[in-house]
């Protein structure tokens, strides 16, 4: 086999092209989103797409920040994310630590107790009835408590705790340290990378959650951000369906009932804003975090 310089170069060029194109494919929706949120509504309606705002306008953002539902939604989502992430990581660490302590004989049975919930569930409706009976309905805890315990992250934490050097713990025991001291002074400080990864993914889970807000909030006067977005989508959908049935008659309602496109896009931008802003600082953690504890050996 003879290697041709040209062939090698073509191959390398193809690789770079594929990577660049796919990167653009991943980034393009975000770009178009930001551009349409910054474009004047009338221009957007006439021209639609454009790679650059033909008429720059911050009106959409002003509207969004004036509107009460979005601000309340922001507060709700922030509270749920901060409190939920904190409680979730603390509680999961407690369980994961018990599973990792070698002198605790029943840790295997306990692992199975948690593992079983990963492979079998009672299904949605019994879960819903249970939540209602527990009082997790129409209040802020309905958005927090159901997501606190995630078996997947409990096992990731346990695997990481298991991988810590046992000698340090043993010598601490000889020095008379209690389990509490070992956990807070040795295990947790050594586990910062996995704690950061877990907290990050749990926080994103809380921030992006709309499902509990849809199922478990009924008459409450607050909604998380994601549910506000979902409601806008649903009203667009309803109006489009009405239009499809009646012809153009519903056109008049449509402009009155759904926020204009630039406003919709601005709402999406402020919703994903915190993730995008924090992303550059945390991304080095999760690429490592996803492989931590997931590869045997």
């Amino acid at each position, binding site marked *: 086999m003879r*290697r041709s310089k040209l062939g*090698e170069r073509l191959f*390398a060029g193809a*690789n770079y092209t*594929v*990577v660049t194109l796919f*990167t653009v494919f991943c980034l393009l*929706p*975000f770009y*178009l989103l930001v551009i*349409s949120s910054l474009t004047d509504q009338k221009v957007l309606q006439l*021209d*639609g*797409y454009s790679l650059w705002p033909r008429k720059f306008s911050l009106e959409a953002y002003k509207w969004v920040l004036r509107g009460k539902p979005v601000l309340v939604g922001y507060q709700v989502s922030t509270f749920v994310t901060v409190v939920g992430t904190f409680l979730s990581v603390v*509680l*999961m660490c*407690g*369980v994961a630590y*018990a599973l990792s302590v070698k002198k*605790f004989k029943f*840790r*295997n049975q306990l692992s199975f*107790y948690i593992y079983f*919930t990963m492979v079998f569930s*009672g*299904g*949605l409706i*019994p879960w819903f*009835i*249970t*939540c209602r009976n527990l009082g997790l309905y129409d209040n802020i805890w309905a958005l927090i408590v159901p997501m*606190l*315990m995630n078996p997947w992250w*409990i096992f990731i934490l346990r*695997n990481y705790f298991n991988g810590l050097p046992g000698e340090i713990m043993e010598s601490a025991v000889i020095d008379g340290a*209690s*389990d*509490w001291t070992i*956990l807070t002074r040795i295990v947790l400080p050594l586990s910062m990378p996995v704690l950061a990864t877990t907290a990050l993914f749990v926080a994103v889970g809380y*921030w*992006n*959650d*709309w499902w509990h807000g849809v*199922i478990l909030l009924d008459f409450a006067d607050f909604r998380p951000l*994601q549910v506000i977005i*979902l409601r806008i*989508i649903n009203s*667009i*959908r309803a109006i489009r369906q009405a239009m*499809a049935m009646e012809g153009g008659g519903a056109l008049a309602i449509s402009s009155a009932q759904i926020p204009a*496109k630039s406003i*919709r*896009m601005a*709402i*999406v931008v402020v919703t994903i804003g915190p993730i995008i802003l924090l992303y550059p600082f945390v991304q080095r953690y999760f*690429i490592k975090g*996803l492989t931590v504890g*997931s*590869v*045997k050996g």
Partner: protein
Amino acid sequence: MMQLTKPTSTPTASLVSAARERSGVARFLGELHRNRLILLLALPGLVLIFLLKYVPMFGIVVAFEDFRAQTGFFSPWVGLDNFRLLFGSPVLWRIVRNTIILNTLFIVVGTIAAVGMALVLNEIAQPLLRKLAQSIMFLPFFMGWTVVAMMLYGFFDYQSGMVNNLMQSIGLERFSFYEQPNLWPGILTALHVWKTTGSGCILYLAVLVGIDTQLYEAAEIDGASRWQQMRFISLPLLVPTVILLTLLAIGRIFYGDFGMLYAIVGSNALLYPTTDVIDTYIIRALQTTTNFGMSTAVGLSQSVLGFICVFGSNWIVKKWSERRGEDYSLF
């Protein structure tokens, strides 16, 4: 994949003498007492798991009951009536078929995209470009489906969608994407690729990074091109990971990506023929109908089938990896 401890069988003391049994209980309590601090730390979490995961498991009795809100889990018993109703309904075939078709598309296309991207990224020599590309590809993973659904309206909406505007400006007719069920398996698969390729290729890249560089050097000496090295060294070495992850995904084939479908399709009945899956059907039942019994029966059937699939695929992974002298199984 995740290493889970094999559950060891609990020694049951039922067959031994009463004295031994008492000492067994005493030993058990003693063990709990010695580790009371650890248990205390774990207790809140364990109680939550019991309340939110195990209590609903007992709630599957609803599948055999004529559910009433007043009587809750203790409604009148109707035996298998709910299942008879379920298996007689034409909807069942549709939701099962859609769940399997969509998941198969996601598994096949998603795996090809992730493996391909890992192989190509692995060829990028510049570390900075490679890191940047990887970070950007990972970004969609963090977007909620509601956000994606809203962006999608920006593209495909009949009135103001970018795609329709573009089509009109080049002289084509406007097209109502949201009324064409046949297009959606394709659109949803593209979305799946957009959202998961960046995260999916991480594991494959980890494998590629671990390959012994001597293999490539030897191939280099033998005159293999980069393409041949990718094709005959990198790709074959990824196969075990591909098989493993695919089998694990097959284990979850009865669970639809309902977050995606509920946010994107929602109540748009025009798209149900191709996009209505088991999970979305159950949620709709919860919101619109009062027949909790039948919906629970759907959920129970899904859980049981899912359980069989998870164990089946795990068993295959175990047998297959044992032959290779490794253990990739989950449990």
